[in-house]
């Protein structure tokens, strides 16, 4: 009798342990991270006491540690062309690229100050390989929506896992348009028969074309 109740207790303990949500998935962590950052940035945007320059600095600070800007610079140029450059040129290009991306990001933010942002559950990226859907454990996408006056725009944050097991954003898709991809297409066109210096020159000037 005693052994019966004992095994009952064991069964109860084991089943309750295995039915508990054991570990918070990385997708939940990153979703929470994005929600927090969005709240911080929204708070900064609505702050009426800070000057614009100070706001800009604080906003960039709050997102800087989350975004791998140097990887974005490399991917926008294309890894092959990047490897062809010497260290000094790589740094020159990367610096000017990052400056431009940050400026562009801030401009967009100010445009959408009054819009509400809804962050949804992140998930691992999936890829179809030979007809089978596979999940990629080193990539997570966190979707969010900018609720506009008449429509919604999707903003997708794409994370990758670094060698140090850190997760960083390497691309953002706005309404399905990847910003790294748009840079790649443009840079490829500019670099047709021109050197990297022409591209650096264009990035340095704030005019399009």
């Amino acid at each position, binding site marked *: 009798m005693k052994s019966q109740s*004992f095994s009952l207790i*064991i069964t109860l*303990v*084991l089943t309750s*342990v295995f039915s508990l949500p*054991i*570990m918070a*998935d990385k*997708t939940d962590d990153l979703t929470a991270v994005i929600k927090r950052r969005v709240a911080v940035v929204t708070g900064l945007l609505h702050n009426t006491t800070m000057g614009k320059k100070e706001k800009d600095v604080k906003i960039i600070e709050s997102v800087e540690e989350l975004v791998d800007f140097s*990887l974005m610079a*490399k*991917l926008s140029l*294309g*890894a*092959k062309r990047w*490897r062809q450059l010497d260290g000094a040129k790589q740094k020159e290009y990367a610096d000017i690229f990052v400056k431009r991306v940050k400026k*562009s990001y801030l*401009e*967009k933010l100010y*445009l959408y100050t009054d819009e509400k942002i809804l962050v949804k559950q992140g*998930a*691992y990226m999936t*890829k179809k*390989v030979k007809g*089978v*859907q*596979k*999940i*990629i*454990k*080193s990539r997570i996408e966190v979707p969010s929506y900018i609720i506009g*006056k*008449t429509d919604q725009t999707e903003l997708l944050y794409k994370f*990758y*896992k670094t*060698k140090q097991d850190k997760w960083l954003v*390497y691309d953002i*898709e706005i*309404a*399905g*348009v*990847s*910003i*790294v*991809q*748009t*840079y*790649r*297409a*443009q*840079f*490829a*066109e*500019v670099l047709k028969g021109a050197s990297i210096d022409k*591209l650096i020159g*264009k*990035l340095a000037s*704030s005019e*399009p*074309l």
Partner: protein
Amino acid sequence: MRLLLLLSLLITTLLLAQAPVTNSGKENTTAYEEENFDEVGFDDEFESEFSKDADQEDFDPLSGYNRIMTDFNDLFYTNVLYPVARVYGDIVPESGRVGVSRFFDNLHFPIRFVNNVFQFKFSNSGEELLRFCVNTTLGLLGFFDPAKAWFDLEAHDEDFGQTLGFYGLGGGFHIVLPILGPSNLRDTVGLVGNWYLDPIVYWQNRRYNLLSNNWQALGLKAIDVTNEASLHADEYESLKKDAVDLYPFFRNVYRQNREKQIEE
């Protein structure tokens, strides 16, 4: 003895509790990509996420014309459309303009409905039908959107270009249309199909027409375009600033956005 057994069981269960358990989600978790940490492998893994798109834009037979048209459109937007839209926006309060936008959106229901059906998206087409009925009646001819606000009915934007893409037709080469902006071969053909189902376009040989002639259609279209522009006035300028080279930028943005729309 029993205490020892209990203790060891407790420790075992605690240890098991520390082990990560994969998400019992609907995704296929039977396989995943290994991370590649040597530099070339690492780069190539990312490259494979992007590079396929760049090749598709190499075939651009109309590039000369497209560039000129992009510049013309840019001049038109910057010097005609957006200034007029801004004046209009100063006169008409935003709530009114949002209502007008919803009104025109509601009128384009036939295009969305038919194309959802053609893509076998039956629950979506049903939701569109419900939206149309609710918004036309309760929403006072579509000026308001109680379908979303009260019943959480989502819109499902489909058009003939997307339907053709759904059936596997590739976009074809890029074409920049006057005033309408970037398009491609498939979507330009699709545009004609959309117009045929558009209640505020006048077709002489179509049985049902809401309007009586082309001038009315043009007038309404002008109001629609100006109204939309007034609601999105700053976005075009801001988008332009991201461009290092305007024409390939819009061409690429158009293609990516379109592919996403077709996927959905």
